[in-house]
């Protein structure tokens, strides 16, 4: 029996590995995800069947919790809008971390009430408590920020970095206390301090950096799962946790690289602070003029173009304009206009966000250009349609050392013959800074919701021909 359970865990672990391998190609990704889910199912069954000394069963509680959790998870996943994906991932991540935290808490209480505990075991429990707690409260705040329920300025205190250092020291101290002199009071204090620290850790980080933070917290949750695995001497927990930790770490690094910022810079929230200042300056700066156009003008331009690149950004997700983009693409392709898409690695609010949107409406992979390919193609492009993107097409990143995004590689759309920018207002994007692109000679602004503007253009083109 024991051997059978061990084998189930082992197969589950292999399924995790194969699942992640599957995720490395779009063709096999879906199967990969299901493989990983299958591995998880095996791990759950194995845990229910595990021959446990001193087990009281409690299967009523267990099955009940499983069902409740599954139902809640299933319905939230089925109901969520694609634009709210970052928020959902963030909440789920917090729940995983919270679960690890509670587990560490109850294990601590159980072990201390049974007598003394082994030193290393206590270290593992307390570490799990700390990282789980940080992940829980941090993710919840990240969710609130992403959802716009909490604004940066509501939670940032003056000298916040020093407060964070203090809180960090305080959590280590409270953990140490819970280690040396075990008591329920000690552990409850330690839990609270960890939670406050997680919250305060995320507080000064700018809303624009939330995806990075979520990915970081994701890796933290993974680590807490892995350390909990040590507690139960359970290999699939260790493996699963580490895989998540690796994934979170790599994604964090990739995102930071794509924004040309260090992880420390993100955590210190330096970006947000300067961003706010710059934004204030930007809105005051109204003496430059922009050329505003109507849908019909853009339709005429497109009618004479032979190569068009569309650059989607967060605004496309907000307006859900991908269907209209696809429709325009089809109409233009019929007229032998070449339509391509320039995808910036951090366009939108999650890595690969734009790819998901465009995949939703069946736009072929071959039309998607990455950063370098887009810039290589830009010179002989007649029109670039910037649909709800802003920071990722900001020339300041290249030529203004005082800009907070200076150094981030961007799509150099201004090198095309014409640029049309779709947005609703002159408001800045997530980085909160002004975009000189809008004032360039070859840039036209088409104000309004992106989906509506695209629809307008489509109608005009149809009436032209």
């Amino acid at each position: 029996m024991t051997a059978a359970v061990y084998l189930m865990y082992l197969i589950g672990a292999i399924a995790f590995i194969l699942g992640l391998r599957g995720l490395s190609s779009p063709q096999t990704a879906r199967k990969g995800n299901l493989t990983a889910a299958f591995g998880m199912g095996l791990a759950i069954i194995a845990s229910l069947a595990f021959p446990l000394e001193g087990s009281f069963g409690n299967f009523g509680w267990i099955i009940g919790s499983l069902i409740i959790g599954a139902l809640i998870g299933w319905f939230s996943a089925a109901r969520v809008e694609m634009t709210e994906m970052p928020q959902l991932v963030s909440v789920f991540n917090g729940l995983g971390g919270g679960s690890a935290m509670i587990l560490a808490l109850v294990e601590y209480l159980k072990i201390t009430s049974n007598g003394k505990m082994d030193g290393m075991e206590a270290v593992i429990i307390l570490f799990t408590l700390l990282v789980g707690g940080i992940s829980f409260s941090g993710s919840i705040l990240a969710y609130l920020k992403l959802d716009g329920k909490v604004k940066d300025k509501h939670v940032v205190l003056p000298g916040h970095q020093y407060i964070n250092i203090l809180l960090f020291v305080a959590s280590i101290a409270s953990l140490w206390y819970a280690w040396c002199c075990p008591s329920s009071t000690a552990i409850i204090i330690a839990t609270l301090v960890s939670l406050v620290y997680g919250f305060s850790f995320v507080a000064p980080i700018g809303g624009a950096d939330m995806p990075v933070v979520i990915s970081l917290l994701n890796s933290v949750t993974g680590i807490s799962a892995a350390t909990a695995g040590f507690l139960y001497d359970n290999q699939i927990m260790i493996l699963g946790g580490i895989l998540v930790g690796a994934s979170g770490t790599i994604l964090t690094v990739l995102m930071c690289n794509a924004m040309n910022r260090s992880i420390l810079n993100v955590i210190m929230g330096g970006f947000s602070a300067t961003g706010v200042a710059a934004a204030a300056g930007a809105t005051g700066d109204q003496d430059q003029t922009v050329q505003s156009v109507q849908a019909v003008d853009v339709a005429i331009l497109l009618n004479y173009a032979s190569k068009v690149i569309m650059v989607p950004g967060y605004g496309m997700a907000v307006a859900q304009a991908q269907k209209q983009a696809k429709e325009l693409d089809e109409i233009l392709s019929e007229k032998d206009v070449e339509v391509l898409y320039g995808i910036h690695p951090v366009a939108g609010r999650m890595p690969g966000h734009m790819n998901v949107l465009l995949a939703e409406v069946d736009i072929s992979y071959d039309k998607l250009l990455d950063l370098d390919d887009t810039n290589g193609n830009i010179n002989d492009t007649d029109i670039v349609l910037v649909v709800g993107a802003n920071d990722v097409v900001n020339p300041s990143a290249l030529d203004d050392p005082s800009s907070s995004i200076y150094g981030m590689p961007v799509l150099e759309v201004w090198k095309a013959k014409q640029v049309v920018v779709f947005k609703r207002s002159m408001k800045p994007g997530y980085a909160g800074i002004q975009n000189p692109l809008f004032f360039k000679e070859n840039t036209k602004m088409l104000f309004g919701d992106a989906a509506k503007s695209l629809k307008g253009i489509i109608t005009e083109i149809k009436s032209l021909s």
Partner: protein
Amino acid sequence: MEYILQFIQNNILSIYLVVFAIFLGFELISKVPSVLHTPLMSGANAISGIVLVGSILFLRKANPEDYFSLSLGAIAMIMAMINIVGGFAVTNRMLAMFKKKK
């Protein structure tokens, strides 16, 4: 120091496991193309719900009279289970969109 050396000696196999898993994780993830980063994030997130295994083992051992432990354990389980089911389901939804096109 004493603790740590003792720990290393007693758990050397688990330490190997951790080291191998770390390398394996990095090799696997670094192959994922940026197109798939969002699904990767939510898929990995679902896997982090593996902590559920711990809460099942805890609950099975908990004293059936001790409602405090039972409730906390059940909460931990529910949280992890939401993470798992929700994570895999949402990833599947995202990837379904990718698949349609091929």
